[in-house]
């Protein structure tokens, strides 16, 4: 069984500095989104439990060929990539289209894993879109996976409860960040990563036009400003009154 993990290349957020309220991305090395790393760890644990191959899929700029070594060092067996310098800030429908084409190249797929959201835009759309394109079942908010022959028992972490579902394979699962702690790649694996097999596709092979309005343009990435009311009170009674008036508490 092949376990596919989709991972998105993003700048290493720990090294991004803010200048004039804008992120400075110059010289910041690329890495993968942190929940994507949880998804990869999930795949590696599934492989350790039941065998199979872990295949990373990703679409991005040419630098991705180097970035993917991080996933291969962490234990992925193989990578399928679409590389093109035009693939920066692409919109999730385009990503989904490209990744779905990559998935079609892979045989004997059991599980396709995604992080719940990417490390940059966090739209959370690509997983469900791909399930739709490929006509596969999709389960979101996954916090635990148990393999059961031709299906999986999946726990979903919902706001005030957990839901347990069974789903036939192949299936798309999008996982939560707290599902595991990704392993630290060993130096030996890091040095072997470059030698692992990679399948590389061009955008033309997929027949997609990247020109036009299929890019995401970030207008502002600032948190909305909260105006504080700064109400002054003299005693407990006034405080209660103020809280009642503001609707914070009720009688």
């Amino acid at each position, binding site marked *: 069984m092949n376990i596919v993990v989709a991972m998105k290349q993003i700048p290493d957020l720990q090294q991004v500095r803010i200048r004039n309220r804008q992120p400075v991305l110059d010289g910041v090395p690329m890495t993968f989104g942190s929940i994507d790393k949880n998804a990869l760890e999930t795949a590696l644990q599934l492989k350790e439990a039941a065998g199979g191959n872990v295949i990373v899929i990703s679409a991005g700029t040419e630098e991705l060929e*180097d970035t993917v070594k*991080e996933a291969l060092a962490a234990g992925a067996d193989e990578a399928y990539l679409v590389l093109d310098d035009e693939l920066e800030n692409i919109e999730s429908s385009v990503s989904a289209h490209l990744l779905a084409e990559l998935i079609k190249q892979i045989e004997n797929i059991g599980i396709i894993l995604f992080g719940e959201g990417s490390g940059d835009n966090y739209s959370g759309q690509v997983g469900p879109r791909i399930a739709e394109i490929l006509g596969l079942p999709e389960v979101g908010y996954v916090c635990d996976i148990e393999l059961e022959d031709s299906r999986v028992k999946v726990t979903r972490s919902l706001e005030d409860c957990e839901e347990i579902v069974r789903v036939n394979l192949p299936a798309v699962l999008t996982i939560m960040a707290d599902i595991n702690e990704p392993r630290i790649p060993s*130096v030996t694996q890091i*040095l072997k990563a470059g030698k692992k097999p990679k399948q590389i596709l061009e955008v033309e092979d997929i027949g997609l036009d990247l020109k036009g309005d299929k890019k995401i343009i970030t207008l502002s990435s600032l948190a909305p400003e909260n105006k504080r009311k700064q109400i002054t009170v003299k005693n407990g009674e006034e405080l209660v009154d103020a809280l009642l008036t503001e609707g914070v508490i009720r009688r």
Partner: protein
Amino acid sequence: MEFKLSKEQELIQKTAKEYAEKAIEPLVNQIEDENRVPDEVIEGLRELGLLCLPVEEKYGGAGAGFEGFVVGLEQLARVSGGVGIFVSVVMLGTSTIAVHGTEEQKEKYLTGTCKGSWIPSVAMTEPDGADPRMLKTTAKKDGDHFILNGTKRFITNTNFAGPMVVFAKDADTGRINGYIVDKFCEGYSISEPWDKLGSKGAFLSDVYLKDVKVPVSNMLGTPDEGFQTLKVTMAMGKIGLSAIYLGNILAAYDEAFNYSKDRIYLGKPISQFESVRNSIVDIAMKYEAAKLMTYRIGYLADNTANKAKLVKDSAMTKIFVTETAVDVSRIAMNVFGSYGLMKDYKMSRIYRDAIVGPQIEGTANLLKTVVATDMYK
């Protein structure tokens, strides 16, 4: 000319940083108090390939070369100077054996270290000093053995089983050679550990060798190669020291920079003061200079066939980086004021660690004579 880490080196740096922050940082106070590197840290380093970075893969090492070694060790030492010395001495022992050892010696001692449970040591220094010309420890040939006698001072990692490369004088010829002694063999004993000011964690003691029997096959190199072995050991040790104290500088930089932004004086962070800002810039410049020299010596070690030739460059790098670390710690301490003196603040440990660098692996004075001899020859 390229001034950029490869992707692989970038990932080695990340692995070392992540491991140091996750697994070593929470134990730093314990390492200081108990003055030993915990077993779980040693195992973690071994599993991740961080213990034997430059050792060839066929002996169980990571095969990351000395470039990989300096980049990785910098990050480990940034979190703990003691762990830095511990790992550096492992490198020193394995490199000395890798350069001058026979295939059997490498197979046994390198594999036993990288894949087994051994931790190597190298014993040069004696109560009279670290200068090889005044060694008093003797090796007397007796059939197919040498008999070693003497006292070694300030030796690291003596408490672990594994090989110790002992430099001794041949009782008959007066020539100096390295001999591999299995620690805790008959006649091997150690003192109580020295309680040093800084870089705590790496166990340091004296070693007493009393009629220690070493098979002839455990001599490193041929009898007339001893001086070359010594030069290689001296060069390698300095590469390790440079990486450790580069990590120390980076730690001081991180601490001082963050503190300058967090410490509020009359409603504003102290980073508003030009004098504080200048201090931070001085530290940053010194870090960059030390980094260039350290990474370069890693490059040279990977690209110089005769490692004995590295003596001068490694000495210059080690003097510069360790003295810079002391300078940087002093500047960083000034950014902190009294808080930096307190044990609760990392800065106090970084300062104590920095002081150690120039006094070990050859003092700066001694090393300058080595460099000068080379320059005026």
